[in-house]
């Protein structure tokens, strides 16, 4: 299974739509334990990406992802801007020059993205952040690929792991970000960043699965 730069552009287009659809929902989550702007900020960032997609046609996957990262850094703001921005920039760096990528490339890029997020935000699993969604997804995919699990199954398993990770933030006590100021009042609410990253990962894994099945 190979993903091309065209597939990546398609993903970004759908991601922008998805975040736009979920703008209110993410903002609601961010009202409970934040300052009610996560959905608004992510939508703004991805609308900017959407607007600039035509300029990224024909570029290699690494260049596309790096450009996306830069757009996000300069339009999302807050904590999400630097974190998502760095994630995409690092993923782009890992895939520099490639016009086609396979499963191993995807895993490498996801790991680079996660490493970027950890470097920038200095959070850990269990802090009630986007890491709680992303790390389990990568772990699951890594394990499946090394076990030789059927790829479609591996993707479904990783999606489930991401979902579980997102939901696992509900009872967590926030240790990072604005939610951490609420102390125990952050318990019982799903983290907005864990949710937006779940949406992005789920979409990505679904598109890869479609590609795999249609090959």
């Amino acid at each position, binding site marked *: 299974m190979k993903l091309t730069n065209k597939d990546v552009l398609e993903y970004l287009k759908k991601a922008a739509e998805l975040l736009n659809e979920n703008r209110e929902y993410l903002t609601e989550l961010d009202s409970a334990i934040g300052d009610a*702007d996560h959905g608004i900020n992510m939508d703004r960032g991805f609308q900017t990406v959407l607007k600039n997609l035509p300029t990224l046609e024909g570029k290699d996957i690494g260049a596309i992802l790096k450009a996306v990262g830069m757009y996000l850094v*300069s339009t999302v703001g807050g904590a999400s801007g*630097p974190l998502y921005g760095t994630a995409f920039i690092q993923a782009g760096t890992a895939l520099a020059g490639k016009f086609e990528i396979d499963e191993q490339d995807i895993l490498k890029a996801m790991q680079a993205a996660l490493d970027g997020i950890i470097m920038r935000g200095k959070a850990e699993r269990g802090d009630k952040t986007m890491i709680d969604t992303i790390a389990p997804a990568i772990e699951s995919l890594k394990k499946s690929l090394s076990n030789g699990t059927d790829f479609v199954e591996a993707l479904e398993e990783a999606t489930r792991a991401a979902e579980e990770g997102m939901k696992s933030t509900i009872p967590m006590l926030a240790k990072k*970000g604005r939610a951490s100021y609420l102390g125990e009042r952050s318990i019982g609410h799903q983290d907005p960043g864990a949710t937006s990253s779940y949406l992005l990962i789920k979409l990505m894994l679904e598109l890869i699965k479609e590609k795999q099945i249609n090959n």
Partner: protein
Amino acid sequence: MLAPLLIYLLVFFKEVKMKKLINKPEDVVNESLEGLALAFPELIKVNFNPNFVYRADAPVKNKVAVISGGGSGHEPMHVGFVGKGMLDAACPGQVFTSPTPDQMYEAAKKVNSGKGILFIVKNYSGDIMNFEMAADLLKGEGVEVQSVIIDDDVAVQNSLYTQGRRGVGTTVLAEKIVGAAAEKGYPLDKLTELAKRVNANGRSMGMALTPCTVPMAGKPTFELAEDEMEIGIGIHGEPGRERMKLKPADEVTEILAEAIINDLPFKAGDEVLAFVNSMGGTPDSELFIVYRKLHKILESKGIKIARKLIGRYITSLEMQGVSITLLRLDEEMKSLWDEPVLTPGLRWGI
């Protein structure tokens, strides 16, 4: 028949939930900056895309450029504090959202006179990361940058296991004191030291009677019943640490003051700057009622009020509420506080 009527009413009330004096919500920040530029052309200039406000006479020779920034919605902080004796530039993000690195990067390039840059950064993950990324960009080009973090809010437990304390009222005081020192030609290292000292000696806590509404969100950031108040709020409309039944102003002042005094702790014989701040929607009369009680509390504890600041300086849009900051002063801080300042939001001595 009843159902359509109910739906109509629901939709109608949802629309009416936000009552603001704005045009389109997405234009709030830019239109506000345009108005500021037109109102104070002799003091400041505004750059758009990326957005930042800078001294009309920048770059000012032979001084460190002091830059701050943060989400919009706290005006006059920070854009209202640009000018002589305070900030060289301020970077306003979207409402309650940290500004982005390109804003600080361009602002620094605009006001840098070669003596270095000092970033005053409030302790919020977004602010920290965005200012850090900007500092990295500038350092990569050989610009000397130092950053000081303000984390004076006592409402949040300072612990290794949280983001740490929020940067609130002491930020305003730091911008004034450090701005004055920069105006006098303090070198970067000395400014950083001074800023850290101000931060170490300042403590704050706030409370809210009402939430506020972010224009793009269209509805309040949290709900408070008619008879409730929120203690330990931040400045972004985020709920605080404790919700309780409304109490009279004297009791509220006691709660805030005790928490602040016990935290440093402030002791008998200390000289302080007493800062009573409106969160945006609270009238001056109420601020003075709070100040009256604060004055009595400090007097009873033998803490001398050497300087005061009372008014709207670090707000959370239209939130009704108050924050109190106490800054333990020394001779240097007092003299720098008294130095002239000429900005849209603070002006004396000139």
